[in-house]
């Protein structure tokens, strides 16, 4: 329970030239893709995942997480200066941030966004450091029944907080679980759903699914919308980056509230940065004495959501690091990075691999500091990246994705799978089936099957074990009530409102 001792282990692990380099690389790459039009952290991490397998686990995780939270910073830069949210979670920042830029206060908006993000990052690091060990301790007592029910709850919660039809979202989770069973069954050793293709014996590679469904999906969507977008970006000039004492005083409380809200929502499965930034904005607008200023360049409307999305991005690591359960597709990719490195995600990571665990947490603080220094003084460079035309970006994404998958699987079959998932992802979107829950199902599937089998063997085939174990019953109860709650019309309406965001 000694936070400082533990963080010292972490800082000791990350303050080596190599790890600092990967931290910097991740933060810089994250900022870059946050700024680049039409690229998100999910696809970038999927793209780079195969190349991290040769790194040691800590370096790989440091770099991948740097990309994730770095993208939150970069996304807000273009949101403010160009009115283009580089990331989904920066959409709300465009509302007031770009208005500020139009009034000639671009520098203040950028500074407010960066300082709020940094503050939130520091707080979130401490929150993770305090909460994670407690949660691991708790999870250590979990048996297979508890784990199975926890996974059910996690999947249900991620679906409840996703937008769109509930039934179809659950369906996509089930499809993901099915994809997870492809390959050699660990218990019996027989090959399932491989159709005799040897390259499928180890299962479908997650990079092929994520790149296919999200990467190709993004490219096709961007190219189809090409005609409607002008291609020319109108960048607002940045004059002064300094905030007045009065500005700082005005943004402090919103920043603090945004951080707390974000940190809380980030832990929830399916929550994360997007929900956090929308809710933080809505809260600030509601409690503000001058709500009419929102949407017309209110500093609070930049500080709160920016703090919230960064805090949310970071605390979404908590369930991943302590329980081995991904709260969003990016965390699912992180888990697969751990698995490939031979580390079984779960509560044992903190005791078996303390340098990895605390190193990642310490790297978040270091990375946030690097981002603050990378973003504010160098804002001109990043903005010029936003002018890169998309026609040069998408072939690069396609090529990098193919090379990575080919290099790591050594077979062209997985490249064809990538193409097939591209088509499947396109069809699913046409049918209004959001593919994000599928990735969570795919990662959780094999673990869930293992826990189900063990629980049933222990109980000698009695399925009521999931209701007899109190913790397990509690989880299933939570899952059931979450589902019922969403189906109730009144709550359903507020959920739809909260998830589409208050854009008035």
């Amino acid at each position, binding site marked *: 329970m000694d936070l400082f001792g533990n963080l010292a282990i972490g800082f000791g692990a990350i303050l080596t030239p190599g790890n600092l380099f990967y931290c910097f690389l991740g933060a810089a790459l994250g900022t870059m893709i946050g700024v680049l039009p039409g690229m998100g952290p999910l696809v970038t991490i999927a793209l780079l995942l195969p*190349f991290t397998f*040769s790194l040691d686990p800590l370096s790989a995780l440091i770099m991948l997480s740097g990309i994730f939270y770095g993208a939150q910073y970069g996304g807000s830069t273009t949101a403010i200066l160009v009115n283009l949210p580089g990331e989904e979670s920066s959409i709300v920042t465009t509302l007031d941030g770009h208005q500020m830029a139009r009034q000639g206060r671009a520098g203040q908006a950028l500074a407010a966004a960066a300082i709020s993000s940094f503050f939130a990052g520091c707080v979130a690091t401490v929150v993770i450091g305090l909460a994670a060990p407690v949660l691991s301790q708790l999870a250590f007592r979990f048996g297979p029944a508890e784990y199975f029910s926890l996974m059910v709850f996690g999947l249900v919660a991620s679906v409840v907080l996703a937008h769109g*039809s509930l*039934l*179809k979202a*659950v*369906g996509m989770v*089930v*499809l993901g679980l*099915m994809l997870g*069973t492809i390959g050699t*069954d660990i*218990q*019996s050793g*027989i090959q*399932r*759903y491989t159709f005799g293709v040897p390259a499928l014996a180890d299962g479908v590679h997650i990079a092929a699914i994520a790149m296919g469904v999200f990467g*190709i999906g993004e*490219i*096709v969507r961007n*190219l*189809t919308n*090409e005609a409607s977008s002008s*291609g020319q970006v109108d960048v607002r000039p940045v004059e002064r980056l300094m905030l007045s004492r009065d500005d700082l005083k005005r943004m402090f409380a919103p920043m603090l509230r945004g951080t707390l809200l974000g940190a809380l929502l980030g832990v929830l499965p399916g929550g994360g940065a997007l929900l956090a930034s929308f809710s933080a904005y809505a809260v600030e607008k509601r409690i503000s004495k001058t709500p009419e200023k929102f949407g017309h360049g209110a500093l609070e409307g930049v500080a709160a959501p920016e703090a919230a999305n960064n805090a949310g991005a970071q605390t979404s690591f908590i369930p991943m690091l302590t329980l081995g359960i991904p709260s969003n597709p990016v965390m699912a990719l992180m888990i697969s990075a751990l698995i490939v490195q031979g580390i079984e995600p779960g509560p044992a990571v903190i005791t078996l691999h303390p340098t990895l665990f605390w190193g990642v947490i310490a790297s978040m603080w270091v990375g946030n500091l690097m981002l603050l220094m990378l973003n504010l003084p160098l804002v001109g460079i990043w903005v010029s990246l936003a002018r890169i*035309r998309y*026609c*040069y970006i*998408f*072939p*690069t994404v*396609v*090529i990098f994705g*193919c*090379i990575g998958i*080919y*290099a790591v699987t*050594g*077979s*062209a*079959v997985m*490249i*064809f799978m*990538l*193409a097939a998932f*591209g*088509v499947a992802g*396109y069809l699913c979107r*046409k*049918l*209004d*089936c959001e593919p994000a829950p599928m990735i969570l199902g795919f990662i959780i599937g094999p673990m869930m*099957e293992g826990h*189900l*089998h063990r629980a*049933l*063997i222990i109980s*000698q*085939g*009695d*399925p009521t074990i999931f209701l007899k174990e109190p913790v397990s019953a509690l989880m299933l109860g939570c899952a059931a009530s979450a589902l019922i709650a969403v189906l109730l019309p009144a709550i359903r309406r507020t959920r739809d409102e909260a998830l589409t965001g208050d854009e008035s």
Partner: protein
Amino acid sequence: MQIIRNQKDFGAGLMFTAIGLGYGVAAIGYGIGSPERPGPGFFPALLALASTGLGLAVLSKSLMGPRARLEAFNPRVLGIVVASVVAFGLIIPLFGMIPAIVIAVVISSFGTRQFNWQRRLATAAVLAVLCVALFVYVLGLPVKPLNWELM
């Protein structure tokens, strides 16, 4: 087709049902076992039940409620991007990285109107040089830039 009110739900329901049934048949073949001794088909059989059930629910929902039409498909862009990926997969094991990149970039460049032939080839050349330098020489990936034996 007046009876189908929501075409998107109808399509999604059909997809979940069909996948559930096909997946379930295979699960029976793997051996379901019993709850005391679950076999390799046990978990898949549960998933098949869930998928089929959800599919039927979505199907029945598509016959009620507000109408929604399926948007028109635009297979051209998708076809081009997928074709460039497939071409890459076909070429790289036979001829190596450089021809795979050049051909994949040229194919994918037809997805946008912003390319003429000069730009197209220049982009392909730059990417090929960049990728070989980065992946083969810096990262040392076991991929050949050019496969001479077959050429």
